[in-house]
């Protein structure tokens, strides 16, 4: 058993795959983190992320999988779910070793696991598309804060860019401390350095004058559409788990 230590990037993952084949390694384990001398693992290999090697593996994967299959693999990696590295590696090795496309071999544990991860990531992405609430600030910017379970921000760009093409907006992932900003032409990744403590009050202070009115109207609307005689809290919480409430205007 060899433990491969890599940096956690997609290129790093692909380089690790390259090394597995280059060194003809059979039994391996993938580990994210820094390479330290003489610790923990007996046999270990430091994966040095390499663009050329990664590109070669990617090229091979594109032959073995459909375009959608490669995208799904990327989405699964992007999610940054701890402990899934070996499943990603297992999937890639299975894809490379098989003569035919294995994307739909749901009987295989790696294929099934990737499909599960993709489903979880998709669901989180859809939830964000639904639950993001923009607040209009005085300079005309529409701002939203999110704290998704997985790193789905990059997957949101396409949806929000095509929907809100005529306004400036920013979506900020408070947990991962970065955001996307759309300036009416393009989107870019950004980081903000406001103090932890007064973040929300800063934003409220920057509201445009009708922001409070529309939030108030929306909360009212949400209350009016409820039919008391049909109340079903269990169903309600299943649709909007409580961890999302703190950024939902109608639930604050």
């Amino acid at each position, binding site marked *: 058993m060899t433990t491969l230590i890599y940096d956690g990037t997609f290129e790093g993952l692909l380089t690790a795959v390259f090394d597995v084949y280059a060194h003809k390694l059979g039994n391996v384990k993938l580990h994210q983190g820094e390479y330290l001398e003489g610790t923990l693992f007996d046999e270990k290999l430091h994966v040095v992320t390499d663009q050329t090697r990664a590109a070669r593996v990617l090229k091979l994967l594109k032959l073995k999988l459909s375009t959608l299959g490669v995208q799904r693999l990327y989405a699964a990696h992007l999610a940054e779910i701890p402990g899934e590295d070996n499943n990603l590696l297992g999937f890639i090795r299975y894809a490379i070793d098989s003569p035919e496309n*294995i994307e*739909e*071999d749901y009987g295989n544990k790696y294929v099934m696991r990737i499909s599960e991860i993709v489903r979880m990531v998709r669901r989180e992405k859809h939830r964000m598309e639904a639950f993001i609430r923009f607040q209009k600030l005085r300079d005309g910017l529409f701002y939203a804060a999110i704290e998704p379970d997985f790193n789905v921000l990059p997957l949101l760009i396409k949806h929000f860019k095509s929907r809100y093409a005529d*306004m400036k907006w920013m979506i900020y992932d408070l947990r991962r401390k970065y955001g996307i900003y759309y300036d009416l032409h393009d989107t870019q990744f950004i980081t903000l350095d406001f103090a932890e403590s007064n973040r929300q009050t800063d934003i409220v202070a920057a509201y445009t004058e009708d922001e409070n009115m529309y939030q108030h109207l929306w909360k009212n609307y949400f209350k009016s*559409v409820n*039919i008391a005689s049909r109340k079903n809290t269990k*169903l309600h919480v299943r649709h909007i788990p409580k961890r999302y409430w703190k950024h939902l205007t109608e639930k604050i």
Partner: protein
Amino acid sequence: MLKILVFLNCMDADRITEKLNILADAAKYDVSCASSGSKRKNENKGLGNASNGICHSYTEDGRCVSLLKILLTNHCIFDCAYCVSRKSNDIQRAAFTVQEVVDLTINFYRRNYIEGLFLSSGIFKDADFTMERLVRVAKKLRLEHNFHGYIHLKSIPGASDELMNEAGLYADRLSVNLEMPTEAGLKLLAPDKSHQDMIKPMSYLKNAIIQHTEEKKLFKKAPMFAPAGQSTQVIIGATPEDDNQILHSANYFYKSFKLRRVYYSGYVPVLEDSRLPALNTSVPMVRENRLYQADWLMRNYGFHVSEIVNNQQPHLDLDIDPKLSWAIRNMHEFPVDVNRADLKMILRVPGIGILSAQKIVSARKFGKLNWEHLKRMGVSVNRAKYFITCQSKEFERRDLTGSAIKQFILATSHSKYNKNVPTQLNLF
């Protein structure tokens, strides 16, 4: 000066809030809230698009909130017994201006609260007068605000073809609510409405949609016309129709008018009227849910309506879903071998949904599937095990009767509508 301005602003906000409360409240009994099925793209860097509907929130009774669903006004010249807005009901009345609806829609949309607007109305003056206002809202949103989000307009029964045509050009979906599943039910509870007046805009739209779809095939630039089609709603439990009548009439409307959806709305007793169920009657939520499941089986699982309900089986089983109910009435069709049966039959197995059925058919090309595989593919094995065999020596060997299976399944499952069981209520 500034003070007065602020004051005016507040007045305005209060008035709008009051109108919104009244007119959203009056609109909430229309259960349709779908915003899917359209294919409107954002053009010329405008605002919004409409394709796969998103539920932006959920009400406390668990229904999807996708659209700003309001009435333009709850003034009405008609007196339909089941409706809160009926003429003879003593309630507060209000009316939005066209501009107010436009502003609300745009501002809610920009904040990502909604997918678009669902605008309905009580009938004031006459059908055309009302319809013209509804159309004007849609037109303003599209032409003046470059808005490409979802718009659902109610077609007012009796509105002219010209207005229906205009409505189709700006709206994604149009609907006429049949409300009562049969003509007799309608006569009893909505004496001012004629069945004919409701059918007329529906058939006009059906033909116009077909015609525009043909044109669109020939010329890419041809205008879109109600790309999300037509839908309707029927109220359940206000009149004595059985599920057999309801589903057959739904089937008729799907077939004859090419409707995209029929919505079933459990009657919420809001009014005292000798023709209606008493005020303390509870909303038939389980029945409503079963009707949706049955409707789903008709549209997506290849079931014919008479396999689900017929003269021998006029009611849907309330304890179990209609698919399981069909299966235990047809035990001679089972067990199904998931490694061989065609997709059509796999779809009929209780506990296997569309996604897992497709996964099964793809995955079995790579090798025979066993229970573990099925479980991982999302099959509810607890339910399906009575109806299938797979690559395993373990399977249900007992020759169980349908009713025994029903008991086993009921003993191990919990319905999301079983909220009246006290132990479950304590959870919250």
